[in-house]
């Protein structure tokens, strides 16, 4: 999948992943890869500015965790984040429905 197709949707993807359970960056990348069947495979560093932005906007919270002997920053979605995700999902579904309707195979297909 081309990275530019993920532009603008990364925050929604991260919020979605966090609804399952809190997680640190590496775990979230692995979950994204796994849930998407390997289709979403972006440069792993790109999630950190997005995560910091989500926290700055008050949609997630984070704390340091020293589980398993390694220091990691664990993120969790909060109520505002869930509400924002609900809105983004509706927008995404509307968008994909509209695009699919336009590009569906039919008389225009070559």
């Amino acid at each position: 999948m081309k990275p530019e197709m993920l532009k603008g949707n990364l925050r929604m993807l991260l919020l979605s992943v966090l609804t399952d359970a809190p997680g640190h960056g590496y775990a979230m990348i692995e979950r994204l890869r796994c849930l998407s069947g390997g289709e979403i495979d972006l440069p792993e560093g790109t999630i950190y500015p997005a995560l910091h932005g989500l926290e700055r906007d008050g949609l997630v919270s984070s704390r340091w965790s020293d589980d398993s002997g390694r220091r990691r920053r664990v993120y969790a979605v909060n109520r505002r984040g869930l509400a924002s995700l609900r809105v983004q999902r509706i927008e995404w579904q509307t968008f994909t429905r509209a695009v699919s309707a336009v590009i569906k195979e039919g008389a225009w297909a070559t």
Partner: protein
Amino acid sequence: MGDLIDRYLIELGADLHVRRNQRERIVAEVAGHLQDSARALETEGVAVPQAERAAIGRFGPAAELADRFNRSSLWVALAGIQGYLVTYAGVGLVTIGGAGIFGWSLAKVFGRDFISGNVPGEVIAPSRCADYLRFHPEAATCNAAAVAHHFDEFVGYHLDALALGVIVLGARWLWRRRDRRVHGRYEGASARPAYVLLALASFGLAALLMLPVAAGTLATGTAFAGSRGGWWLACGVASSAAFLAYAVAAWRYHPANGLTPAD
């Protein structure tokens, strides 16, 4: 932690231009991520150096990650705004200097009186007369000495401003050349339109005010705020030139014209 990851983290820390606690947090998060990624590869049988190299490869270049963080950094934006204000001050000083050069040229054609003639009806005290004649013994009269003195002041102060403006702009150019990665790439780009608007508004307003005053005082042979028409004309023309220069730059580098300013 291996050497490769250590080097990556050092490079990342050097490229980040954010508050210190934010930089420390970002570097610590990235360190944890890279270690997790490398260890996962090692459990699959990949040798340590190759695992670190692969983990870094999948993570992405440090400079690109730092760039993303720096774009949203208030610190970088403030540094950029500060830079623009220094440039604005430098251009202002050079414009004042330009007015002095233009005024000197006008005086060559129309005489010094055109620039620094005495205000009609002004009476010069004898003590001031003595001072003027001491500065300009070649002058035939007290009035002529006063005009010469005021003209020298006009040109002198304006050329001082020009020299200072050149120093300010030169220092600014050297600073940006020295640290292009902060002051060039990230120079609070979002503040650029506001800077150009400020320059256009201030120089445009100055020209709009000064040129009519120049026209009025030249037509009536009077002075305004103690200055003759030639002075107002020189300053108004210099302000107009600065306004036009910014207008041309704004037009050329408007996104619709497909050009970007050379940083």
